[in-house]
């Protein structure tokens, strides 16, 4: 157990060193989220103005949605980019021949993602409060914690799947790191209610934990409270998705061992 923590700490620090020393990288943590916040913030201010108060909650919906989406997206990025980091630097073999186990790597990448997202979340909430008078904590209350954790977990699972694709196709699949989450965005009803989607797509959407969180977020804004279903259902779905994505990753790893892909990963 003590060894496992040493391994997890090693990988956590290995990812964190990158931000410690390099200013652009420290900056990178918050750059895109802040830019997104600015755009969405001003867009909603504008809509609000044009609608003359008829859409008074639009700013809350959009900014909240954007921040929540970012939790999911950054979590996926943290996992996938951690993995691909060692592929890019042709270090993956060095890591794979240490006593590090795959589950330890997964834990380290999740903790790294968690810390990174916590920082982003703090920056975004402060900015949203200052610029648009939007108070995330007041709006979502204590629901914020289970909701964020659900998004974090789902993003992590998507990140694991993305990493599996890289295990299979190497850097040829690199573009998917940024692309895969956007497959989920339209279905997850991020910026609009689930009811907007055609019925068949709604069925698919209900299979994604993210949908419940975004629906729940809007319910809280409208009604001030939320049925527990909106937190528990996605949680159970999340457990399912996590197990499935970890199994896919392990399976791809075994396949890579058979086909000799591990030593060729960074080469294409």
């Amino acid at each position, binding site marked *: 157990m003590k060894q496992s923590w*040493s391994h997890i700490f*090693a990988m956590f*620090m290995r990812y964190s060193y*990158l931000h410690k020393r390099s200013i652009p990288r420290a900056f990178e943590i918050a750059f895109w989220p802040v830019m997104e916040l600015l755009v969405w913030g001003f867009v909603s201010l504008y809509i609000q103005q044009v609608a003359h108060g008829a859409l008074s909650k639009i700013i809350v919906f959009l900014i909240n949605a954007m921040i929540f989406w970012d939790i999911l997206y950054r979590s996926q990025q943290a996992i996938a980019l951690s993995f691909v980091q060692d592929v890019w*630097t042709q270090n993956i*073999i*060095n890591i794979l*021949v240490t006593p590090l186990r795959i589950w330890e790597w997964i834990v380290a990448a999740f903790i790294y993602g968690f810390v990174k997202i916590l920082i982003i979340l703090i920056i975004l909430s402060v900015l949203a409060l200052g610029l648009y008078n939007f108070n995330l904590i007041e709006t979502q209350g204590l629901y914020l914690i289970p909701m964020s954790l659900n998004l974090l977990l789902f993003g992590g699972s998507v990140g694991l799947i993305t990493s599996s694709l890289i295990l299979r196709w190497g850097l040829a699949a690199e573009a998917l790191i940024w692309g895969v989450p956007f497959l989920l965005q339209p279905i997850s009803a991020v910026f609009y209610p689930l009811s907007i989607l055609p019925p068949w797509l709604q069925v698919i959407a209900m299979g994604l934990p993210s949908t419940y969180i975004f629906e729940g977020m809007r319910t809280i804004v409208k009604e001030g409270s939320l049925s527990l279903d909106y937190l528990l259902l996605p949680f159970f779905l999340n457990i399912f998705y996590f197990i499935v994505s970890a199994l896919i990753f392990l399976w791809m790893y*075994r396949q890579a061992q058979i086909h000799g892909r591990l*030593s060729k990963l960074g080469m294409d």
Partner: protein
Amino acid sequence: MSPLLPLIEIKDLCKQFPGTLALNHFNLTLQNGEIVGLLGPNGAGKTTAMHTLLGILTPTSGEVSVLGMSPFKERHVIAQNINFSSAYVQLPTNLTVMENLKTFARLYAVPNAKNKISDLLELFEISYLTKRLTGALSSGEKTRLNLCKCLLNDPQLLLLDEPTASLDPEIADTVRKILKKFNQEKNIGILYTSHNMPEIEQLCDRIVFIHQGRVLAEGTPKEVIQKFSTQNLEQVFIKIVRGEYQ
């Protein structure tokens, strides 16, 4: 682990890649404290054999045991007691030398890591590099850093895939002396590949010559040179690869 067990035992190992039989009923043993040179032309299967020992490649058939264990079932136990370095595998270029060594010291749960790291840096004469980015090192410096990484966990067995590939003759000599010293003082076994025949003659207790995935000659460098009636290993190499032997 019993001291009588060989550090490496490979029996009848085959590895089939699409279109290539990289290892063809390959056999190898390496005893405690032995330095074995794995020789052969490009594409002979040397790296494939090493990766199989490391557990990152599964064999198509055959038996592999490292420190008496299976690299596929007990990889992490083995990994704690062996190490690997290759001129073709890098440490993260965007971390400093010290950050890299700290990371690997943690991955190997090295006790007293600080002292261990500074001793090794001194040994390889690269203490002045600690704050440098690994990507900014010369290839000779990188190689020495890789070797520091290799010795962090006091391994019983080292798998070195062309470790001196980019070293100048003087540093290559220093590196060989250090490896020999570790081998003698700590009884570390070393499996070594290199295309530098004089180096192999000087360093290895025994050589295994492999061509198209199978062993073609085996013995002390002297024995092999005699067997092929040549002056040195280089001539043996050329003879074998050109098929000019019985």
